[in-house]
């Protein structure tokens, strides 16, 4: 289990980081970094085992049915990448303690830790499924670390997400193919499967998928654009993720999959070509940049290109070179990124030309930067020189004709001239050529930041003289990438006079020339840039796609009625009638069971048929609603006649709730439906009748022609025994199929939340437009009332005297309903009842409360509905987890006896159901019941000079209510449409001269004096 400690430490850190940051603020980096170091130390035994030629493995079962395991296997590749992730990570975290602003910085530390954990899991796992999940987690963490840097990071983070997720999808497809082809999720077994040698076509396809997935992550052309974009993130993030870790995940993937694909020509060709193009383009673009950090990003792109090309070569030496350059690059580039932060802190800018001349002010930074860039440029005797030489040697081993090898070497060397040039630009641009600025205007050179920025760079200096030791680390990695080989790369600073050395000498010579004419060179490169960048390309593609989407929407858009529904229904009708005809033509249907229909079915059919006609053809909305509710009640009776008492109760109560909500909605809508041309309606009618024949025919042909199913008999025989409940339908809902119910209550809650979410994106004036903008104008009342002030006028137009009786009744009926609701809830296990039904009875209290107030007011505290919904889902979820932990299966109930009464955790699950239902009902009453009805001569509208007018001045309106469900009591509707949090002004707006009413309905329960304004 060696190595497990490392993963466990990181997992523990993920759990504890919120606590740590709450206590230590930005200084948390010290502690978290120390744990990284500890994790690295804990990894030493595993490292030693690997260096000795061993590969420690362990696995925990995860999805036994699919043979997926939490399998880990430590090999040379994992060792190199784990150490990079942990040690560079530690340095970056120490650095962050002084880079970050003071404060908790939770999201930064948490995401960094989560990232490290997923990165280490990625490089150590031996299971393809785990590998894919860890891969996606690194993408997500990278996305969020960019997105957390505020509005400037929004667009770049999404572009990053887009590109890396394209790679993720490709990897998923590749993993799926690999599992399908080799029949295992074990990485070692899958990649060494004989399948690959035997099937070149399939191998090529999978190799390309993996290669492109890796190229998206490692920012290879044409996917390189996300990396410069990602510079919107904080500098420590760039130093860690964008120099050492996340971009190296792509490199890791290529090395990991090399065993299967390193001899596949498409793999070699794609990687070498893309790698060399990337390294050249990256170098060129780096020189275009005016921003030091963007330059660094392109330089990373360029260096990664070199590594990818080496992996593409696929020989022993090439893979050793790739691993070697990965180590060297991680050291100097993370250090240089951190130096960008140091320079930024001193000079207050990262723009070339504005960065002051710093070498006098910050001599140590100057020296460290020179060493780092010299290593990157490949100047002997630094580590970067040795690694680049090795890569050049590898490039000469390019498969195919010898000339190709030379070509690759020349391309690599030419690109390295650009590398040398931008290294010079870094040094001269930020330390030498800048304007002289008086020292007092500059920031200080932060000691801590400088120390940890310098650490990786300075650590690489002695390493260059310990290459035989370093080789011991590189060789197992290369050997793991090419199983069955025994690489001897002979890493050294001096290989004798070789073509590579000559190339290096030429690069340096060209570089020195560039330094001498640097002003002109920089001007040339600043001008020699494309008029667009990758971000623009992505934007154009996005815009084209959205235009295409808008086009597609127009095909089914609402401006042409409901053709989309017609298409769906029409197809369904074709399938059902066609299917029915085929079945009847070829087969004898089994005999129907006897006694399928009862006399009551006939009666109900007649009544339902009559009501359906009324709903369909009535132009009055009110009539249609009445007919609809009639159908609901008839359906209830039909269900009762079929023998489903629970469903009957539910249907009855749901029907009542639906009708109340429809009434709330109708008060705001015109009184009649529009009239449509007859021809149009006839066409609709024909389609409707055909659909009815199809569906009815299918039901006739397919139902009622067998005995009761086995599963029905199983439930009838076994369910009471297993669950201890006699009401089999209820125990199916809360025990046997509780996951369905859990999904259902989530849908229920989501509906409520979705209403709030949609409403809060529409401005007040569009939700509730003035009556004059609604097709039906305010109408005159049918009866002319006596003048205002007279008793007759008050009796009709004032609401509050009319609800006194109702209020008195609620005080009696409310408690009775509450008790009934509780009883129904409790008895649900054995007799008809349960959470849903009880909750609907409870909701009736809400309905009564709503109707007993003379003016519209929110029932309950403003945020109660959402808390109820969220709480309900949470309670159900927790019950499920309790079942998972103690009974071994999610949502499995635990039975017990309390005070002699049978009790099971499914009862707690039912509480969750109850809460979610009440939450949804509250949402609908509080939002749809707002009293700004535009033209109905009822409620609070007032009759003035013979016309009805709205009287909504001191009322909450829909939008205000919506926002209050999220933000609590507000002073008025918010003006935003994108979910921005309310400002102080939204909470305290200048009150109008109207006295605001107490908006809660609590007084009804307590019976205290109504705080209402009479006339």
């Amino acid at each position, binding site marked *: 289990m060696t190595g497990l400690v490392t993963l466990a430490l990181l997992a523990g850190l993920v759990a504890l980081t919120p606590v740590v940051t709450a206590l230590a603020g930005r200084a948390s980096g010290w502690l978290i970094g120390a744990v990284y170091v500890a994790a690295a130390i804990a990894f030493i035994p595993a490292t030693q085992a690997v260096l000795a030629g061993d590969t420690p493995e362990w696995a925990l079962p995860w999805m036994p049915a699919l043979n997926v395991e939490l399998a880990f296997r430590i090999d040379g590749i994992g060792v190199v990448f784990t150490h990079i992730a942990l040690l560079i990570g530690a340095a970056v975290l120490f650095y962050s303690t002084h880079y970050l602003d003071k404060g908790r910085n939770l999201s930064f530390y948490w995401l960094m830790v989560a990232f490290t954990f997923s990165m280490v899991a990625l490089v150590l796992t031996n299971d393809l499924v785990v590998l894919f999940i860890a891969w996606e987690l690194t993408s997500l963490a990278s996305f969020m670390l960019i997105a957390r840097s505020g509005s400037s990071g929004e667009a770049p983070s999404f572009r990053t997400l887009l590109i890396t997720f394209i790679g993720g999808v490709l990897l998923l497809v590749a993993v799926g193919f690999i599992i399908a082809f080799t029949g295992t999720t074990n990485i070692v077994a899958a990649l060494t499967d004989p399948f690959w040698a035997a099937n070149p076509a399939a191998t090529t396809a999978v190799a390309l998928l993996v290669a492109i997935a890796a190229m998206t992550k490692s920012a290879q052309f044409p996917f390189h654009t996300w990396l410069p974009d990602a510079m919107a993130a904080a500098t420590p993030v760039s130093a860690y993720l964008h120099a050492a870790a996340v971009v190296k995940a792509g490199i890791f993937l290529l090395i990991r999959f090399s065993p299967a694909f390193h001899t596949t020509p498409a793999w070699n060709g794609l990687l070498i070509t893309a790698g060399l193009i990337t390294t050249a383009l990256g170098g060129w673009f780096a020189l275009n940049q005016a921003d030091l950090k963007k330059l660094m990003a392109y330089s990373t792109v360029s260096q990664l290109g070199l590594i990818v090309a080496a992996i593409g070569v696929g020989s022993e030496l090439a893979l050793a070179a790739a691993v070697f350059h990965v180590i060297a690059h991680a050291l100097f580039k993370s250090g240089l990124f951190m130096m960008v932060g140091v320079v930024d802190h001193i000079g207050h800018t990262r723009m070339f030309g504005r960065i002051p001349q710093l070498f006098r002010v910050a001599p140590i930074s100057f020296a460290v930067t020179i060493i780092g860039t010299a290593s990157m440029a490949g100047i002997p005797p630094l580590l970067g020189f040795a690694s680049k030489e090795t890569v050049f040697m590898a490039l000469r081993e390019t498969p195919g004709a010898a000339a190709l090898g030379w070509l690759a070497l020349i391309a690599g060397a030419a690109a390295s001239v650009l590398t040398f040039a931008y290294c010079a630009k870094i040094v001269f641009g930020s330390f030498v050529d800048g304007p002289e600025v008086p020292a007092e205007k500059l920031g200080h050179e932060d000691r801590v930041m400088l120390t940890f920025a310098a650490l990786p760079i300075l650590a690489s200096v002695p390493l260059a003289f310990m290459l035989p030791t370093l080789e011991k680390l590189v060789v197992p990695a290369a050997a793991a990438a090419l199983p069955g080989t025994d690489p001897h790369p002979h890493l050294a600073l001096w290989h004798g006079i070789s073509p590579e050395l000559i190339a290096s000498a030429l690069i340096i010579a060209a570089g020195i020339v560039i330094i001498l004419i640097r002003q002109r060179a920089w001007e040339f490169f600043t001008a020699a840039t494309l008029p667009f960048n990758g971000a623009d390309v992505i934007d154009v593609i996005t815009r084209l796609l959205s235009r295409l989407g808008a086009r597609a929407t127009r095909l089914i858009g609402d401006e042409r009625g409901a053709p989309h529904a017609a298409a769906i229904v029409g197809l369904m009708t074709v399938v059902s009638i066609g299917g029915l005809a085929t079945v009847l033509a070829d087969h004898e249907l089994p005999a129907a069971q006897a006694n399928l229909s009862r006399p009551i079915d006939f009666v109900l059919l007649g009544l*339902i048929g009559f009501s359906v006609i009324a709903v369909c053809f009535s132009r009055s909305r009110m009539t249609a609603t009445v007919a*609809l509710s009639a159908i609901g009640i008839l359906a209830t009776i*039909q269900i009762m006649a079929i023998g489903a*008492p629970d469903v009957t109760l539910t249907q009855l109560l749901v029907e009542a709730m*639906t009708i109340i909500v429809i009434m709330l909605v109708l008060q705001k809508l015109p009184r009649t439906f529009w009239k449509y041309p007859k021809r149009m309606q006839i066409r609709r009618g024909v389609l409707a009748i055909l659909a009815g024949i199809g569906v009815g025919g299918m039901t006739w042909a397919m139902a009622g022609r067998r005995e009761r199913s086995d599963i029905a008999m199983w439930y009838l025989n076994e369910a009471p025994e297993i669950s201890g409940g006699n009401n089999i339908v209820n125990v199916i809902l809360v025990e046997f199929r509780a996951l369905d119910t859990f999904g259902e209550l989530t849908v229920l809650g989501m509906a409520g939340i979705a209403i709030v979410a949609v409403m809060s994106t529409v401005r007040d004036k569009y939700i509730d*437009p003035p009556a004059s903008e609604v097709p039906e104008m305010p109408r005159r009342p049918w009866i002319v009332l006596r003048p205002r002030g007279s008793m007759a006028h008050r009796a009709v137009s004032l609401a509050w005297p009319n609800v006194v009786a109702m209020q008195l009744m609620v005080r009696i009926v409310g408690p009775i309903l509450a008790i009934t609701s509780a009883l129904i809830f409790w008895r649900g296990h054995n007799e008809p009842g349960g959470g849903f039904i009880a909750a609907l009875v409870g909701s009736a209290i809400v309905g009564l409360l709503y109707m007993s107030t003379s003016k519209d007011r929110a029932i309950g505290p403003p945020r109660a509905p959402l808390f109820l919904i969220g709480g309900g889902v949470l309670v159900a979820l927790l019950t499920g987890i309790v079942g998972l932990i103690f009974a071994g299966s999610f949502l499995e109930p635990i039975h017990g006896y309390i005070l002699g009464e049978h009790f099971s955790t499914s009862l707690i699950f039912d509480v969750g159901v109850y809460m979610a239902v009440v939450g949804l009902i509250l949402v609908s009453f509080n939002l749809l019941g707002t009293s700004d009805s535009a033209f109905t001569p009822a409620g609070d509208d007032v009759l003035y000079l013979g016309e009805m007018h709205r009287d909504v001045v001191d009322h909450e309106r829909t939008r205000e209510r919506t926002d209050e469900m999220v933000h609590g009591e507000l002073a008025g509707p918010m003006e935003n449409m994108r979910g921005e949090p309310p400002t102080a002004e939204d909470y305290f707006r200048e009150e109008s001269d109207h006295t605001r009413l107490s908006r809660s309905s609590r007084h009804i329960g307590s019976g205290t004096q109504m705080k209402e304004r009479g006339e």
Partner: protein
Amino acid sequence: MILAVTVGVLTAGGVYLLLQRSMVRAVFGLTLISHAANFALLASGVPAWRGEPLADRTDIAVAADPLPQAFVLTAIVITLAVTIFMLAMAVLGHDDDQYRTPETGEAHQQ
């Protein structure tokens, strides 16, 4: 089976309403269609057995299939949720019978 005819009638009415432009009518149509779907589900439990599936009261020999009942109960509640959601959308702008997408104040890309 008479229930099949009821399913057919409800479906026909539901589809007719669903094809109307008025949002409220479409919602009514979906309500009818969901009644039809619920009956079809219940019919799959073979309505020749119509005893309430309560273990202590009903002889198993006549008890109805409880599984479709559980499905229908779930379906009814989901219908309630979806209906309320659609009604809330219908009420935006106080006019559900129109050709254009309701105004939200946000500029739409066309």
